[in-house]
């Protein structure tokens, strides 16, 4: 149920496009209106989410310290895992955002022979995760050729790198295939690792099915069921120059691809995918661990009821006196 529901959601989306484009001829809706709406939702939604987080302060300085603190001058501080400066925090964040450093620590804890725990390095999740994200990024950046009249500087470099295997015509871009493989791995581990299966929600399967759908339709269009990309580019250029056109000769496959991408963009801010913005906002990672050296203010700090020394002495004065502990006021004889 948790798996089938999101799967059929994606199938339903695909059928919707087929019906809408091939049947009802609503090309303008699927080619122009929905993409615009999706992008709008994406941008506004992400900004809304980030602003909403930003409205809550970080009242305390709570980095998770994963290395030696800064203390005595002869003890070597771990400036990346327990940073005490902004530069250190930037380094730590860069490691986490760009290289998934924390996930790289991953290890498997297991009870062996019913008597001892073994902790083994387990980097598959890290590998699949980082490959998935980077190939997705490259695929996204490659698509810039549909959105600019003159190609930006990086495109040629990226395509040369991506297609260096020189297989087939049009030449194979590795990232597309690898993206699909990584997404499939992430999906399969949700099926087959019992714990991960147990914690997975429909909301975990849905984006994976969506992305697999996007990658599959993209690959089909490039290598197998080709579409007229000149016409496609006329459509996409129409979108980015705010002069939308619906050229003839674009197959339904393209509209499925575009619609799934739109669905992903629109879904993004309202789902776990906002971890893209959230990772930058995570207080256990983006704060310095030096709150003994520098005062960290809490904007909602408020006075609380305390038990003062005077009240304390009032209660125990005689006992203190008897035990020869100094007091502020002499006891009344």
């Amino acid at each position, binding site marked *: 149920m948790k798996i089938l529901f999101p799967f059929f959601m994606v199938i339903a989306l695909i059928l919707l496009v087929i019906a809408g484009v091939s049947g009802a001829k609503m090309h303008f809706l699927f080619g122009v209106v929905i993409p615009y709406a999706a992008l709008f939702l994406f941008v506004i939604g992400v900004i809304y989410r980030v602003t909403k987080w930003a409205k*809550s302060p970080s009242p305390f300085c709570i980095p998770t310290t994963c290395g030696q603190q800064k203390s005595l001058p002869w003890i070597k501080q771990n400036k990346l895992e327990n940073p005490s400066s902004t530069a250190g925090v930037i380094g730590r964040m860069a490691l986490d955002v760009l290289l998934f450093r924390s996930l790289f620590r991953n290890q498997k804890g297991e009870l062996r022979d019913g008597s001892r725990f073994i902790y083994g390095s387990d980097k598959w999740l890290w590998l699949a995760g980082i490959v998935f994200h980077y190939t997705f990024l490259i695929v996204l950046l490659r698509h810039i050729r549909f959105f600019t009249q003159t190609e930006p500087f990086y495109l040629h470099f990226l395509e040369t790198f991506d297609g260096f295997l020189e297989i087939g015509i049009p030449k194979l871009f590795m990232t597309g295939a690898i993206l699909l493989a990584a997404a499939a791995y992430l999906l399969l581990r949700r099926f087959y690792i019992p714990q991960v299966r147990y914690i997975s929600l429909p909301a975990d399967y849905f984006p994976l099915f969506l992305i697999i759908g996007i990658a599959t339709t993209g690959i089909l269009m490039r290598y197998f069921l080709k579409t007229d990309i000149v016409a496609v580019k006329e459509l996409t250029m129409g979108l980015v120059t705010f002069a939308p056109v619906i050229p003839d000769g674009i197959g339904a496959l393209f509209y499925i691809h575009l619609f799934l991408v739109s669905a992903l963009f629109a879904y993004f801010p309202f789902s776990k995918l906002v971890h893209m913005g*959230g990772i930058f906002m995570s207080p256990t990672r983006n704060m310095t661990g030096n709150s003994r050296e520098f005062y960290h203010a809490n904007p909602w700090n408020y006075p609380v009821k305390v038990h003062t020394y005077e009240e304390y002495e009032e209660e125990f004065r005689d006992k203190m006196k008897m035990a020869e502990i100094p007091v502020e006021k002499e006891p009344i004889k």
Partner: protein
Amino acid sequence: MGKFIKKPNDLMQIDYKSPQTDWMDTPADIREHMYLHPTKAKELGAVDFPNIHEWKPADKNWNLPENWKEIVLNGIKERLQKYRSFHVFMDICVRCGACADKCHFYLGTGDPKNMPVLRAELLRSVYRKYFTTGGKIFGKAAGARELTDDVIRELWFYYYQCTECRRCSVFCPYGIDQAEITIIGRELTNLLGLQPGWIGGPVANCFMKGNHLGLEPHTIKSNIEFMLDDIETITGIKIEPTFNRKGAEILFITPSGDLFGMPGVYTAMGYLMLFHELGLDYTWSTYASEGGNFGFFTSNEMAKRLYSKIYSEAKRLGVKWILGGECGHMWRLWHQYQNTWWGPPDFMEAPVSPITGTRFEHASSAKVVHIAEFTADLIKHGRLKLDPSRNDHLKVTWHDSCNTSRGMGIFEEPRYALKNVCNHFYEMPENTIREKTFCCGSGSGINASENMELRMRGGLPRANAVKHVHDIHGVNTLANMCAIDRASLQPLVDYWVPGVQVAGLHELVANALVMKGEKERTTDLRGEPLPQKSAQKSGGKEDAKDV
């Protein structure tokens, strides 16, 4: 309630298989020896917790206040606005599962709701239902669920099966910290009056009497005097510490657990001997007589209330800075919270060691120095005469406490001191120490006796690593610098690894400390005969020449 009689072999039969039913449809099995008993109004005295009432965890009906749902939802809303951590962590988890087998409670119980991700989902599902559009519309398909009293029971049960140790947050790709979520979850149940007694009682004590154990001023003094007698017997030296003395240079604060019960008192004896040997101008306080803070395990506000004593006592006594003893969560709070709550205490001066002249730059705003930092500095400067052979009967390993590891990062200071005061030191496996250290299973206020099965299960990964070095190197001493560790690791290793004793860092320091004018020592601080004496070595070992 029956006595906890399960044997280690029974507890080792851990079933990691998930139930057939979805977790949302599997109610919490609240069973004996796995939970804390509720607090009673009369135990709380002057501390005012909301909605304190009679209830039993095993009962179906917890007599929740009439508007309990409103209280919880308003509580969540307020905390979303107050804590970015909570707000972000409610939204960004992708359920990758990297945290699952990192939790000592999951490893020790096999209960899927002890996977940090699922423990967080218990609350996240409620958040989605009432605070997100997707959850409101799609309900269960979006991972949302109705807030029912079963959900409250489940939250309560599992949020007291989390010791806020932060190990999950080390491995989480986004740094999601279950401790933050547990803290909020406990605040919410606290609002409903579901306060465990083991935590509520010490809080009330600490508020009124200055410390968790409820030691009154004269008792504190007499407890310390007992220790002084023992010290005199062992070393022939008479020590005269001061209490509540105005004009002292340093105020010394340590958890009250060090003043009462084994093996904490040996550590306190260590402090007394060290300070005497240095001729330190310091004072104890009977008012600010608690370094720990069980208030932190109820609500942020209560934690702040209990800690008002520390800086205000420093101000009253006119000390220059504060030296803090060996404690875990105390140091997380002193390092990450205290200054924000009550600081900056500019009436004091940036801490400088009167012995070595070292300025503790890293503590210049909060004015609190950890005793391991202080002692490591002394040893580095060769100011202590040490005879590590006096600890030769001990084969020592080091337990990094969760709070000082992942909420502070004090790793090298205690190790440096330890290596200078004992000759046989062995690290536990790399994946179980430092930032990856395992909890004692009893932190965050769950070190009671009625939940012994939970504690033994939670501490199993730690004990298992101790067993490893015990089997291989014959380790017989588990050293640490945390009062809860000292109290709770002993029963843990007695259960899982018999033959290991638990000791504080400064107990071992004092064993090795050669004091001016001391008589020939024949026993260590515990009265155990000293091993065959080898040639006396001077302090600082190989580092002495650097000075």
